């Protein structure tokens, strides 16, 4: 029987982290460089810095607040230093993070004489103390039901739909069956396969939400005069053998396994409960992964055809390919080589058991290539214009 436990950091709110990051969270573009300076100066920190600020309004302002707070609240984060320009914005985000019970401190330009050097000095002291305290945490046993998986595909080719995505789908079904959570987005890559997703919806409202989310993106593309050919699938996908969005989508949805679909949520919305959810969000990997990680995914399963080095900064991202040429090339990018399934030297079932073992090792602390090579970033989508 496949092992189903790992060792994680139990949080005050009951969540289980698979990493214990000290996060320097810059909530306005003005303080990004200062946050990055503190991050470079204090080993053991991670930086998330939005380039945007007070020009945002409406849905965009709400999404930024929600996602920034969610990064701070994330299970893989043990402590947070929030840095921003003005008190209400910083305090609102810091308060949301404090609600999880983890240590959070705030630095505000208005209260530091608008001096980046003052923010840097205070920030370094706070971050250093947080790292020391965070290093005292110890892992305890946790199980599949404590996991929230995010699934992503990037630089796909036909091997993705043949091998890597179905393999990830097997893991998703195992985690969901154990009471855990899973989510994938990339709405435009449901196009042509939305009837199959809708057929798995738990009720008619969810089925309708799936179909209308796809139709909305399809109309946006048509109204913008975009030909999806060359955009999605892109030139790299096409050279690798993909042809139409329908073909790409039918391969892409395999990463969601066969589990029932419990709902469709917005970018960076908290996943409401156990089971498989969809996120109505852009397909571009940094935006998609950012929204999924903000929704609570501790671990990303990221499939690729020809290779894709992008990973989340907060959520260890396991790179998987079934393409034998890619697997022979990207030794320090792929965490899991599934080319033996492509070449029919191994069954999907056996490979899924091996992938689950790798996933649980990573959940317990084994580093991914993306972590070792520091390819991680966490970004938030934009929806409309700014003032």
């Amino acid at each position, binding site marked *: 029987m496949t092992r189903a436990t790992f060792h994680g950091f139990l949080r005050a709110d009951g969540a289980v982290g698979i990493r214990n990051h000290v996060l320097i969270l810059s909530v306005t573009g003005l303080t990004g460089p200062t946050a990055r300076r503190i991050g470079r100066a204090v080993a053991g920190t991670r930086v998330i810095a939005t380039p945007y600020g007070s020009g945002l309004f409406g849905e965009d302002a709400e999404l930024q607040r929600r996602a920034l707070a969610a990064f701070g609240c994330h299970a893989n984060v043990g402590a947070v230093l929030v840095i921003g320009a003005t008190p209400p914005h910083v305090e609102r985000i810091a308060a949301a993070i404090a609600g999880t019970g983890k240590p959070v401190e705030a630095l505000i330009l208005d209260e530091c004489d608008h001096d980046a050097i003052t923010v840097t000095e205070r920030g370094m002291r706070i971050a250093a103390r947080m790292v020391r305290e965070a290093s005292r945490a110890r892992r305890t046993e946790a199980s599949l039901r404590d996991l929230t998986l995010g699934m992503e595909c990037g630089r796909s080719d036909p091997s993705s739909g043949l091998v890597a995505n179905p393999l990830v789908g097997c893991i998703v079904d195992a985690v969901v069956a154990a009471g855990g959570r899973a989510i994938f987005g990339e709405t435009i890559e449901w196009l*042509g396969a939305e009837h199959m997703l809708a057929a798995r919806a738990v009720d008619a409202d969810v089925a309708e939400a799936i179909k209308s989310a796809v139709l909305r993106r399809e109309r946006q593309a*048509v109204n913008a005069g975009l030909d999806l050919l060359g955009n999605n699938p892109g030139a790299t996908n096409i050279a690798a*053998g993909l042809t139409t969005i329908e073909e790409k989508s*039918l391969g892409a949805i395999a990463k969601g396994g066969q589990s029932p679909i419990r709902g469709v949520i917005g970018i960076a919305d908290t996943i409401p409960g156990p089971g498989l959810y969809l996120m109505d969000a852009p397909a571009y990997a940094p935006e998609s992964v950012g929204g999924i990680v903000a929704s609570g995914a501790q671990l990303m399963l990221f499939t690729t055809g020809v290779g894709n080095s992008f990973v989340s900064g907060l959520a260890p991202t396991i790179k998987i390919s079934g393409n034998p040429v890619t697997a022979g090339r990207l030794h320090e990018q792929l965490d899991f080589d599934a080319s033996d399934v492509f070449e029919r030297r191994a069954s999907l079932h056996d490979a899924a058991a091996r992938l689950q073992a790798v996933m649980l090792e990573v959940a317990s602390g084994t580093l991914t290539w993306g972590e070792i090579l520091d390819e991680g970033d966490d970004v938030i989508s934009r929806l409309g214009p700014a003032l």
Partner: protein
Amino acid sequence: MNWNATRLASDDNVATALQDIAAGDAIVVITPGASIELVALEPIGLCHKIALSDIATGAAVVKYGQCIGVATAPIRRGAWVHVHNLRSRRAQPA
């Protein structure tokens, strides 16, 4: 181990190349049922698609048991199926 392509569903009219295939090569397609043999009319790259039957202009190209688009030119059995002879049905201008 003499197969070099795979068909994913029994009603698919295309197969996926599991190796680079040269023009004139024999193609042995693993399928959910019995294997199919045909000859490649042109080179087919790894992961690219081969027509398993003649496909008329406007007819559905089927993979995963689903329509992935329509043929924009007549496609012969053994030919390469790609963006030069296959087009999406979706997100098309009115």
